[in-house]
């Protein structure tokens, strides 16, 4: 499958064409992997962390954490945004080297000085933010840092490609290793990064929110792979905010809260309510997602159409897409990763110019030539990838104010106003740490996502386009977002939620469109809908 998406010649060269196909790369079968050394008696934990504390510039991120990982177990890790999950794992993986406490592998004390040390000791981590090389081929990505060479010292392409193909196939992923990595759907990229870690020979594999970009079949594949890995005697740490996933795949689960390890418990006999209570505290069990059952969609008649798309088409990404959104309505657009919905969202914000079709806002036809025009036309957009929305080195308040700077000031900046606006959002969205002056990069993943949303909340847009708005958020934060978005809808905004997570769409939408291979194939309105029905249509 040679997925060569035509690269868009863009003036400043930063439009990344996205993969446009969601064909089946995946074969779901039991995965068999070679067993690693069973040298260590199984009662010695593979990894022990004792009394781990870590602080960032005086702010404690971990306090006295004792964590144990056994050989051949899948260990689920849950906790609110900012609870310290990633920090803990980064210590294990040698990313953070300056911490207090002891770390033992197979009973022997170690202290890594770099991620390379950790890798050498058999610890591999797939980070929350993808770290693949989009411009290299799949094969090169799988062999990153350990390319086979011929006798003459030249990279042995043939071995590399054949090996990569073989390895991926053994995981049930069928893709041509010569494909450019960036041309593949995000989910597949994530699986390939995982493959790299698995085949690096790691005995401890850490996955930081691996399923947040995966579609259900991909999640199924991932779980198969994980079970294969477990059967080979290796240990896995699996961080996720999807409690269902945690409960279905893990053997043991650990809850973090506010930098502390609250409890470690076998998965047997616990449920979501139990987890949520320990993650957030009692009284919030009702957060347990209500959309597990059926949801009744109710659209309100008589509202004016705010945005209307007609026969939009763009390259190979999507074609003949027509829909409209009314004021005071949340329209969900659901589809597996790479089915064109991401490109569609970008088109609505003027980032991608559609080849065909028209867009009308408030009944007036608009040609959006760039994002500035889209914003000025009253459209706001939050992309699925935080990295492309946020300025990591800048303080939170500058991140919030950038999209409304023109309203705050014509010529001269007004930092006091910027700060007070940002503080308001930090407070109302419960962003932690609750300061507008911290550098954005110091926030945990979920809190960064809230900042991305906050950018558009000061001056209400007419249309709010959200791509994967709750990716990486804990249950509480998701609930916050759901409330915020609903409140905006009730104020009369037209909201479009684009997602590959059925839960996201179901928890928000008043009406749902399903996209498949770049086309809208189904509309659900004024009826009852469940996750199964949604998946069936996609």
């Amino acid at each position: 499958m040679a997925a060569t998406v035509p690269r868009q010649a863009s003036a400043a060269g930063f439009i990344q064409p996205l993969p446009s196909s969601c064909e089946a790369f995946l074969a779901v079968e039991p995965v068999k992997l070679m067993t690693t050394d069973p040298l260590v008696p199984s009662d010695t934990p593979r990894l022990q962390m004792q009394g781990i504390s870590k602080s960032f510039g005086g702010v404690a991120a971990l306090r006295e954490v004792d964590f144990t990982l056994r050989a051949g177990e899948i260990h689920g890790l849950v906790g609110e945004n900012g609870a310290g999950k990633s920090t803990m794992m980064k210590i294990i993986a040698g990313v953070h080297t300056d911490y207090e406490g002891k770390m033992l592998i197979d009973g022997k004390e170690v202290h890594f000085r770099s991620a390379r040390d950790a890798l050498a000791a058999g610890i591999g981590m797939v980070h929350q933010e993808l770290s693949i090389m989009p411009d290299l081929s799949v094969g090169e990505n799988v062999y990153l840092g350990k390319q086979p060479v011929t006798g003459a010292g030249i990279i042995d392409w043939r071995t590399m490609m054949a090996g990569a193909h073989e390895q991926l196939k053994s995981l049930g992923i069928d893709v041509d290793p010569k494909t450019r990595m960036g041309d593949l759907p995000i989910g597949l990229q994530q699986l390939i990064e995982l493959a790299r870690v698995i085949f690096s020979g790691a005995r401890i594999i850490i996955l930081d929110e691996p399923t947040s970009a995966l579609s259900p079949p991909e999640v199924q594949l991932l779980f198969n792979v994980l079970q294969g890995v477990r059967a080979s005697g290796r240990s896995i740490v699996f961080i996720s905010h999807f409690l269902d996933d945690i409960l279905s795949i893990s053997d043991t689960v650990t809850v973090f809260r506010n930098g502390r390890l609250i409890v470690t418990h076998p998965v047997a006999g616990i449920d979501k309510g139990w987890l949520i209570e320990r993650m957030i505290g009692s009284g919030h069990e009702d957060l347990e997602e209500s959309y597990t059952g059926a949801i009744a969609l109710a659209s309100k008649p008589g509202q004016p159409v705010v945005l209307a798309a007609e026969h939009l088409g763009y390259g190979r990404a999507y074609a003949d897409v027509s829909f409209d959104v009314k004021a005071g309505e949340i329209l969900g657009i659901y589809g597996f990763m790479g089915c064109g919905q991401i490109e569609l969202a970008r088109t609505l914000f003027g980032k991608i110019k559609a080849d065909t079709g028209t867009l009308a806002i408030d009944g007036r036809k608009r040609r959006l030539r760039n994002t500035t025009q889209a914003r000025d036309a009253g459209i706001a957009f939050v992309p699925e990838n935080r990295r492309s929305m946020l300025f990591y080195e800048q303080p939170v308040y500058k991140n919030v104010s950038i999209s409304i700077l023109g309203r705050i000031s014509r010529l001269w900046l007004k930092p006091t106003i910027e700060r007070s606006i940002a503080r308001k959002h930090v407070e109302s969205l419960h962003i932690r740490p609750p300061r507008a002056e911290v550098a954005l990069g110091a926030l945990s993943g979920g809190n960064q996502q809230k900042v991305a949303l906050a950018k558009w909340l000061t001056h209400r847009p007419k249309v709010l386009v959200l791509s994967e708005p709750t990716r990486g958020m804990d249950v509480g934060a998701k609930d916050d977002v759901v409330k915020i978005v609903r409140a905006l809808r009730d104020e009369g905004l037209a909201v479009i939620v684009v997602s590959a997570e059925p839960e996201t769409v179901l928890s928000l939408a008043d009406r749902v469109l399903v996209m498949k291979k770049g086309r809208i194939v189904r509309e659900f309105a004024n009826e009852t809908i469940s996750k199964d029905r949604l998946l069936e249509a996609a």
Partner: protein
Amino acid sequence: MTFQQTSAARGSKSSLFLRSQMRNIAPFATLILLLIFFSIASPSFATIDNASNILTQISVTGIMAVGLTFVILCGEIDLSVASIANATGIVVAYFTLQESYVNIANIPVAGWLAVALALAACTGLGLINAFGTTVIGIPSFIMTLAMMQIGAGISALLVRGQIAYNVPDIVSTLGAGNVGGFPTIALVLLAFLVVGHVTLTYTRFGRYIYMVGGNREAAEYSGVNVKLILGAALVICAVCSGIAGMVGVAHFGSAQQNEFDGYLLDAIAAVVVGGTSLFGGRGGIGNTIVGLCVLGVLNNGLDHIQIDSFLKILIRGLILLAALIVNVYVQNIRSVERAEGA
């Protein structure tokens, strides 16, 4: 001068603070070391007269460097600064009445008009840079490389190997005049530095420059007109270069081909040595001032001590290399921190 950095560093441990301030500390330390070294090595170095010399010597480079700071902060580069300066200086002389022995087919016009035409010329060249980079999509490195040649071509065509001496009065006052013994060209530089700093630090446009340099995609997703900002930075840079060229011609007392050849390197060096990130988003005029002083002190100081003039060139190259290493090294520290912060 680099307020962007302070808040990020506030509240963290002092070692962390020092690391994050490397970008600002290293150039400043270099400057102090050079000052101490030359003051000891040569009695004629640390004098008021020489300070005024250094100031005059860095003025032309400095005006160009102000414009270049805008471009580099966006994460782009402009290789045509010296060439545009040369062309603009020649244009202003071309429209000025020359002595009869100057054999140039020039078109004398009123002084203000000559200046206006010269300004139009550099603005035009800047607009071409901007158009090529943002609308057509040529990388700025290549686009301005072509412009470097175009500027040289314009210069060559206008003077045809001759030398012109006269420039409009206003230009010669600014470039070669004195106010109470103080060189006016240094005042021009000061004005550019102040305006540049104020623009970058206190205006909306300045914020956009930093944000575009910091994360271009994020700026675009925030509704910032990225192409407009990049284009504006390139035009500003060309206009700064043009004015540097005009006052430079007055300062040197002549307008001729290849007059500004060494200035491209000096201007880039000033910005980068000062600690402005080559990748965009960090640094500022404050850094450029330090960079200019390092370069000025180095160039001037080497003249004050007995040293092989050919070795001088090598030493300058080595200092530039060291600055580049620090620049990229600091960038790496930051990307590690960012990875940790994800």
